[in-house]
């Protein structure tokens, strides 16, 4: 740590002759310190992969490919994780389907419709949504929102009962805690990130393209479809993928409202489970292969979200770079 103190501006290191080409010790020390901090990101990511995989190894070795079966029974030493993977995908899809149109709508509202002095308060409100902690969403979700929306589920269930596809998707509910409730709460939670990234992408559309469209007499909608959308399509897809990654990894709110039932069912109003939630709820009492299995679900979740994030960031970065070149 002595290099830190030498990097201090008050240290004599900086008082060398101005034309002295040698780099003082403190200067080099500071460079090394900065490099080490940067490398820390890579080190942590690698360590996450190694240590969690190590802890999960007994699950992978004892169960083999059976980890992808739908058979989760810790009491009988059965640890198939398929129902959790299913739940993660279903809840994330529900969240994306609801959050994306809203987020893109708000992003367009902010960039193309409202004047600047109005856009700042709107951004503040959206940020407020991002600052509400996951556990508060969960608390509200299970004690207030789920009991309330159960009535709506019941109405929908009664209406569509007997209708071929809808009937099995939206049948009468058993409780307010379900895949669908989790999806709605997730939608609230990912809206801020999707909105702000979409806005960033949409803001990069060259003004000259937009003015050109208006000059041709386009309405605002026609301008958006003709000038904004082709330019920002790719970036918005990236933003949506990032939202998907968040929705898959969000834990506590889902753990409280999803209903905690390890089942695979098309019934969206039925209680279910997802990967993050099962870890949060069951890790405390787990040991041996049970703990390794939950750790392994964490590894799968890590791998999936890392892949989704790498793809999404690549898309967002590329669309941002294209605009800088233009």
């Amino acid at each position: 740590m002595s290099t830190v103190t030498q990097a201090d501006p008050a240290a004599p290191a900086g008082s060398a002759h101005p034309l002295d080409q040698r780099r003082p010790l403190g200067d080099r020390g500071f460079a090394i310190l900065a490099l080490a901090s940067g490398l820390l990101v890579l080190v942590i990511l690698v360590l996450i992969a190694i240590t969690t995989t190590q802890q999960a190894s007994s699950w992978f070795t004892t169960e083999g490919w059976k980890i992808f079966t739908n058979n989760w029974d810790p009491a009988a030493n059965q640890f198939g994780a398929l129902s959790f993977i299913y739940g993660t995908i279903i809840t994330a899809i529900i969240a994306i389907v609801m959050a994306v149109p809203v987020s893109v709508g708000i992003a367009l509202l902010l960039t193309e419709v409202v004047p600047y002095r109005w856009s700042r308060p709107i951004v503040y409100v959206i940020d407020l949504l991002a600052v509400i902690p996951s556990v508060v969403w969960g608390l509200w979700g299970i004690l207030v929102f789920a009991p309330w929306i159960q009535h709506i589920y019941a109405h929908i269930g009664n209406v569509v009962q007997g209708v071929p596809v809808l009937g099995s998707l939206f049948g009468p509910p058993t409780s307010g805690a379900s895949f669908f409730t989790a999806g709605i709460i997730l939608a609230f939670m990912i809206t801020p990130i999707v909105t702000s990234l979409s806005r960033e992408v949409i803001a990069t559309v060259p003004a000259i393209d937009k003015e050109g469209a208006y000059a041709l007499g386009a309405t605002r909608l026609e301008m958006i479809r003709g000038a904004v959308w082709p330019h920002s399509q790719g970036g918005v897809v990236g933003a949506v993928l990032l939202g998907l990654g968040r929705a898959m990894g969000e834990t506590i709110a889902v753990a409280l409202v999803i209903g905690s039932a390890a089942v695979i069912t098309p019934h969206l109003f039925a209680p279910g489970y997802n990967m993050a939630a099962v870890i949060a709820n069951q890790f405390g009492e787990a040991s041996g292969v049970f703990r390794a299995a939950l750790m392994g679900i964490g590894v799968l979740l890590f791998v999936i979200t890392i892949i989704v994030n790498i793809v999404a960031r690549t898309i967002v970065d590329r669309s941002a770079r294209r605009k800088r070149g233009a």
Partner: protein
Amino acid sequence: MAVIAGQQGIDLREPKGWRRTSNRIATFLMVLAFVLVIIPLGFVLFTVIAKGASIISWQFLTGQPIPPNVEPAGVGGLWPAVLGTIEITALATLFAVPLGILGAVYLNEYGGRGWLAALIGFMSDVMTGVPSIVMGLFIFSIWVLHFGYSGLAGAFALGCLMLPVVIRSTDEMLKLVPNSLREGSYALGATKARVTVTVVLPAAIGGIVSGALLAVARAAGETAPLLFTILTVTTANPNVFSGPTTSLPSQIFSNATQPYTGAQDRAWGAALTLIAICFILMIAARIVTARFSRYSR
């Protein structure tokens, strides 16, 4: 796009018919999208304030221990959780903010356009997407299994979550510092470290502090990384470096599923306290941005 129908001169009136209607529908839908976001936000805030305000008192915030779930509201207090949240978040800030700022200094001042800086920058973005529960499992594997539960372990987990956020926000701010400032300083014979510490960082300090405050606000509300690192106990543990402790988010999580109204009331009180902490940090960030930012986008 045949927009101007064959007319003499340019028709500047609003288009008629379906073109006007569709445009108005689109604008209406955008406003509706915003309303759809305000409703749940208002609903959550209203519920938390209405239910939380009635239980919060000085005794609630500073009393201890946290009573058993069956006890009605008004017994005991949440001091162990408040103390834990303050200690753990402060310690995490102490780890993540200096390292994050240094990491951003590397990306912006030293790495330049090299492949390593590009890789670190990209992976910091990716790391912001790592689920918080995975951070909890990571610290459990690497620390808790060897050294046991402690506030320190929780701070490590929160620090890992904050690090990439601080790197990214600081990096954005350093990019805004004009090169002429650096060049002027070099021209006076300063070393690179000295230029960075005395010229570049002070020039960007407003944005850096505000980014760090927002990262702290996010971290203070995190529950998942704490579940397997601090355990959740009912008595205050002033020693952040050893022994299980508790925090506001983990207390809310364990109370939320209790059937007892006393436990639920305490959860609402804790939720209001937590939201207040997060909002205060966020508002502080706004004030810092407004008052101390010399360069902005």
